C-alpha cells in the first residue's frame, strides 16, 4: 500500500476512459470502461465473463501498455494459460515479461475454520502486491463471489468487499469484476451494490435451439452509452461486440458503376450496371437462376481484379463451383488467385446475430469490394422475419458504409406477390431485379424484370433470361396480342416473323420487278410508235416533195403556156402551197 495516490482524480469534469481493445465494446461505451474505477461484468454460466475480463487485461497489456493483474477465484493459473492459449493469448509469456500477473485464490470452506474476528486483509495485500510488482493499471477479479461460499460471516465479507472496491479505486486501477447472474438479480450476491460505476450484462439466450450471445450496458455512470442489447461472439480471436445498430444513414453515395457481368443487363440498367456500393436484390422462385446471376457478377468483378466474398447458405463451395462451371463460369480460378472467398454455413448453425457478427468479421478480414449473400431468405430458418429484416438492414447499412456492393438473392415462395419478398427488405435495396417463371405452351421459362433501380434510367421491359452453356443471356420476349411469349413459343414466333419478313421482302421485289417490266413495255411501245411515225413521216415527206415537184411542174407548165400565149405574168402560187403543207406536218 505504498503508492496509494495515483493521478486519477484529475478529470473531475470529464470521465476518463480506459480502452478495452475489444472490438466493438469501445464503440458502445464511447471509449472504454471507466478509468480507475471498477466495472461489474455479470451474466449466467458460460456467457464469457472470464474471457471479457481476461481480454481486457491482455489487450491492455499488449496494445495500451497497461499491465494487468488477473485474480482468479475459480480457475488455476495453469488452467487459465491453457484455456487462453486457444485464443492466441500467451499468458505465460506476458507473465514472464511482467505485463500480466496471474494469481489464483483458492477458497475452500472445508479448509477454513473460523475462530474469531478476522478480515480479508490478506487478499488486499496479495492484490496490492501483485499490482505493485508489475505496476498494473488494470485488475480483473474472477469471480469474487466465490468468497461468499468460503466464508460464513457475510457481514464481515460485505464490509470487506466494500473496502476492496474502495481500495481498488484508491489504487487507481481500472478493474473488471465478474459476477454470476442470480435469480432476478444481476448477481447472486448483489455485487452491483458495491460496483456502481459501470455494469455490463452478458446474456446467452437460446431461442428455438439457437444460441445467441448478447451484451448490454446496464449502467455507466457519468457517460453516454449504447443501451441496446448487442450481439457478440467469441471465436479464435477472442471477444467481439458488434454495435451495428448504431450505424446511421450517412454513408457516401458513389456514382461509379459496376458491371453486372451480363452485357444486356448492363444495358437494361442505364447502360452501365449497378452503382458501386449499392445493394442489389435478386428475387425469384426456386430455379430461376439467382445464383447464376450472382456468379456472373462475381466473375466480372474478379476479372476486374476486385475481391469478392460469397456467403452461401444453401450450397457448399465445391457445389457452387461445379454448378457454375456448367454455365461456363470458372470460379475456381478466382478462388485460387485469392480474389474470391466462400463462406458456407447452414443458417441454423448459429443465431442470426452470430451470422451477422461472423459476416462482419469475415468482411473486415477479407476487405472485399463485393459481398454476395445467397440466399438471405434461408436466414429465416434461424430467426423470425422481423429479426432477419433488422439484421439485413444492419448488414446493408454496414456494407454501404464500407462502400461494398451487396448482392443478395432471395427465394420467394411460389404464388406470392411479385412485389414482395419473404423477408420484406425490398425497401432497403437500391436495385431490385425479379426473376420469374413464365409458364405457357407446356414450358417454364425465365423472365427478368428490373423492378426498381434507384438513381438510374432503367429498362421497363421484360427480358427472357436464358441460361446457356456459355452463361446467362437475355433475350427479348415476344409481346403481342397473344400475350408474352417465351422459350419455344418465342422461337416459333420469331421464325414466323422471319418468314413474314422474307415474304414481305419478296413481295416488294416482285412489285418492283413489275414496275420495271411495265416501264420497259411502255418504252418499247413508245419506240414502236416512234418508228411507225418516222416511217409515215418519210412517206408523207416524199409525197409532199413529189406534190411540190408536180405543182412546180404544173406552174412551170402554166407559165410556159402563158408565155407562149403572151399573157400577163401570174403570181407565183408555190409559196402558199408550201406553207400550207408545212403547217399540216407539224
Amino acid at each position, binding site marked *: 500500500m505504498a503508492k496509494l495516490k495515483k493521478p486519477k482524480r484529475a478529470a473531475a469534469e470529464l470521465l476518463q476512459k480506459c480502452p478495452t481493445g475489444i472490438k466493438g465494446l469501445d464503440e458502445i461505451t464511447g471509449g472504454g470502461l471507466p478509468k480507475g474505477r471498477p466495472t461489474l461484468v455479470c451474466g449466467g454460466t458460460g456467457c464469457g465473463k472470464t474471457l471479457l475480463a481476461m481480454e481486457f487485461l491482455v489487450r491492455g497489456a499488449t496494445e495500451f501498455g497497461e499491465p494487468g493483474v488477473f485474480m482468479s477465484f475459480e480457475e488455476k493459473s495453469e488452467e487459465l494459460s491453457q484455456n487462453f492459449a486457444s485464443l492466441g493469448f500467451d499468458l505465460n509469456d506476458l507473465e514472464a515479461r511482467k505485463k500480466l500477473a496471474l494469481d489464483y485464490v483458492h477458497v475452500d470452506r472445508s479448509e477454513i*475454520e473460523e475462530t*474469531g474476528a*478476522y478480515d480479508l486483509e*490478506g487478499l488486499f495485500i496479495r492484490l496490492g*502486491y501483485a499490482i505493485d510488482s508489475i505496476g498494473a493499471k488494470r485488475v480483473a477479479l474472477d469471480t469474487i463471489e466465490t468468497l461468499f461460499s468460503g466464508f460464513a460471516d457475510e457481514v464481515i465479507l460485505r464490509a470487506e468487499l466494500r473496502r476492496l472496491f474502495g481500495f481498488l479505486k484508491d489504487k487507481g486501477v481500472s478493474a473488471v469484476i465478474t459476477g454470476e447472474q442470480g435469480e432476478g438479480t444481476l448477481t447472486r450476491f448483489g455485487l452491483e451494490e458495491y460496483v456502481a460505476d459501470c455494469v455490463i450484462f452478458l446474456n446467452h439466450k437460446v431461442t428455438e435451439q439457437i444460441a445467441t450471445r448478447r451484451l448490454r450496458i446496464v449502467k455507466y455512470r457519468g457517460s453516454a452509452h449504447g443501451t441496446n442489447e448487442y450481439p457478440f461472439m467469441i471465436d479464435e480471436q477472442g471477444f467481439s461486440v458488434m454495435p451495428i445498430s448504431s450505424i446511421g444513414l450517412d454513408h457516401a453515395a458513389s456514382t461509379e458503376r459496376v458491371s453486372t457481368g451480363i452485357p444486356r443487363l448492363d444495358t437494361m440498367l442505364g447502360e452501365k450496371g449497378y452503382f458501386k456500393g449499392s445493394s442489389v436484390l435478386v428475387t425469384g422462385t426456386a430455379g430461376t437462376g439467382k445464383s447464376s446471376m450472382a456468379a456472373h457478377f462475381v466473375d466480372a468483378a474478379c476479372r476486374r481484379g476486385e475481391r469478392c466474398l460469397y456467403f452461401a447458405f444453401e450450397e457448399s463451395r465445391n457445389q457452387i463451383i461445379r454448378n457454375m462451371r456448367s454455365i461456363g463460369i470458372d470460379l475456381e480460378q478466382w478462388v485460387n488467385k485469392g480474389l474470391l472467398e466462400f463462406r458456407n454455413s447452414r443458417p441454423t448453425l448459429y443465431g442470426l446475430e452470430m451470422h451477422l457478427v461472423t459476416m462482419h468479421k469475415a468482411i473486415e478480414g477479407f476487405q472485399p469490394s463485393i459481398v454476395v449473400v445467397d440466399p438471405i431468405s434461408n436466414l429465416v430458418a434461424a430467426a423470425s422475419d422481423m429479426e432477419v429484416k433488422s439484421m439485413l438492414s444492419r448488414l446493408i447499412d454496414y456494407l454501404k458504409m464500407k462502400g461494398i456492393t451487396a448482392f443478395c438473392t432471395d427465394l420467394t415462395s411460389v404464388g406470392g406477390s411479385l412485389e414482395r419478398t419473404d423477408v420484406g427488405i425490398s425497401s432497403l435495396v437500391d436495385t431490385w431485379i425479379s426473376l420469374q417463371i413464365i409458364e405457357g405452351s407446356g414450358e417454364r421459362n425465365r423472365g427478368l424484370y428490373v423492378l426498381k433501380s434507384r438513381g438510374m434510367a432503367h429498362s421497363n421491359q421484360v427480358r427472357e433470361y436464358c441460361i446457356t452453356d456459355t452463361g446467362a443471356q437475355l433475350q427479348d420476349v415476344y409481346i403481342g396480342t397473344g400475350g408474352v411469349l417465351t422459350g419455344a413459343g418465342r422461337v416459333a414466333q420469331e421464325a414466323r416473323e422471319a418468314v413474314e419478313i422474307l415474304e414481305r421482302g419478296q413481295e416488294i421485289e416482285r412489285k418492283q420487278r413489275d414496275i420495271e417490266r411495265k416501264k420497259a413495255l411502255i418504252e418499247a411501245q413508245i419506240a414502236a410508235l416512234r418508228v411507225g411515225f418516222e416511217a409515215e413521216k418519210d412517206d408523207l415527206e416524199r409525197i409532199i416533195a413529189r406534190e411540190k415537184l408536180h405543182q412546180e411542174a404544173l406552174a412551170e407548165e402554166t407559165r410556159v403556156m402563158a408565155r407562149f400565149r403572151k399573157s400577163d405574168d401570174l403570181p407565183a402560187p408555190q409559196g402558199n402551197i408550201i406553207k400550207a403543207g408545212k403547217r399540216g406536218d407539224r
Partner: protein
Amino acid sequence: MTSEIRPKVSRKIKTEDVEKAWQLRLYVAGQTPKSLTAFANLKRICEEHLEGKYRIEVIDLMVNPQLAKGDQILALPTLVRKLPNPVRKIIGDLSNTERVLVGLDIKPLD
C-alpha cells in the same frame, strides 16, 4: 522460506528434538489488535496443549506480501498448521479456543 520475526513475539522453539512435531505459521498484517490477540491466543493454547512440541513462525505480510500467495492467504490473521500433515488452516483471532483445537486437530489434554 524466510520468516519475519517481529521483535515482540520472537521465535519460539521448544525442545529441539521434537521440533518437527508441530509447525505452526501465523500470518498477520502489521501489529493490529487482531494480530496481537491472535498471537497471544496461539501462544496460550500451544503452551497449554502442545508444550514443548511446537514451533511458531509469524509472517508479517505487510513486510513480505509475496508470501501470501504460497499458503493461499486471504483472511487475516490465518494460522496454518504445516506439520503434522495434512495442512490445516484456521482464520480469525483464535479467541474461540475450542474451534482452534478442532481446527488444529488437537485433542484437549486430559
